[in-house]
């Protein structure tokens, strides 16, 4: 690449802004500010770690820098500060976004292998071990 060409490219890159930009407004008051009551803050933090960010999809809302994750943190802290139990806040979100939003899926026909498979594998292992030991004896 020639230098003028490279310079043009750099200028274009510097001038570009992402198309799916955030609002640029300051985050919600409780997006990054802890609650005054340490017990409530602990409950809120635990809940935030187990809620999935909707726009980043691989992070919890506690980990994400996305603006929407900040607004979800603000929602969680405000509801917990108002005295809502964490389970109620999780249920409220799951009623709107489905199980998808939670990293703590409920026991359902579609999710029972999550709990059942380890037991099944353990049983299978025990069965193999028993056969081996019996053969050796």
């Amino acid at each position, binding site marked *: 690449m020639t230098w003028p060409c490279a310079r043009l490219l750099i200028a274009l890159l510097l001038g570009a802004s992402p198309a799916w930009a*955030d*609002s640029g*407004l300051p985050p919600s008051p409780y997006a990054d500010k802890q609650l005054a009551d340490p017990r409530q803050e602990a409950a809120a933090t635990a809940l935030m770690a187990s809620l999935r960010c909707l726009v980043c999809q691989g992070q919890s809302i506690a980990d994400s820098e996305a603006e*929407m994750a900040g607004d979800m943190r603000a*929602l969680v802290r405000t509801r917990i500060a108002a005295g809502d139990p964490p389970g109620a806040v999780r249920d409220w979100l799951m009623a709107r*976004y489905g199980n998808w939003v939670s990293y703590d899926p409920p026991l359902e026909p579609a999710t029972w292998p999550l709990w059942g498979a380890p037991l099944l594998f353990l049983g299978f292992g025990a069965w193999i071990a028993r056969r081996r030991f019996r053969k050796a004896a």
Partner: protein
Amino acid sequence: MRVKGQGLLLWAPLLAFVAFFALVAAGLFKPADTAVRSKLIGKALPALTLPPIVPGHPGLTGEERGPRLVNIFASWCVPCAAEVEELARLRARGVVIDGIAVRDTPAELSAFLARHGNPYRAIGSDAESRSMLALGSSGVPETFVVDAAGVIRYQHIGAIGPQDFEAILRAVEDARTI
């Protein structure tokens, strides 16, 4: 020593690999739909009481009735600017559109409406995305079709393009009959 059934067992790892490869290849050619649909479709629209944001333009009182679109948008959202044209066409066909402006400022939203047009009956300000979350929406732009009984009938994720016009219009027509 050759145990009965060993021949078949010998092929098992290869078969498992082929099955795994097919699964991954299928995922490559047909990527999963990562859009998160609202679970409120078929349920009542939550009460939306949002203050006005543009001077002289009403906000949302929560008393809105009748079949309509609830459009979640923002002046800082580029696809939202692109879909205003389709919203204006829908409005011209008699569709009522209520707007929820997410994280917006009066100045920037007024400039947005002046530049792209204003197809909205009312625009409420959702400063902390609270109503967006209450609707089960995961971003801007999104559009909900609400029927005459106040039930959410349809959700469109992303900007409304010319190819979506007919589907939205049909959904609104369906929403007129409960």
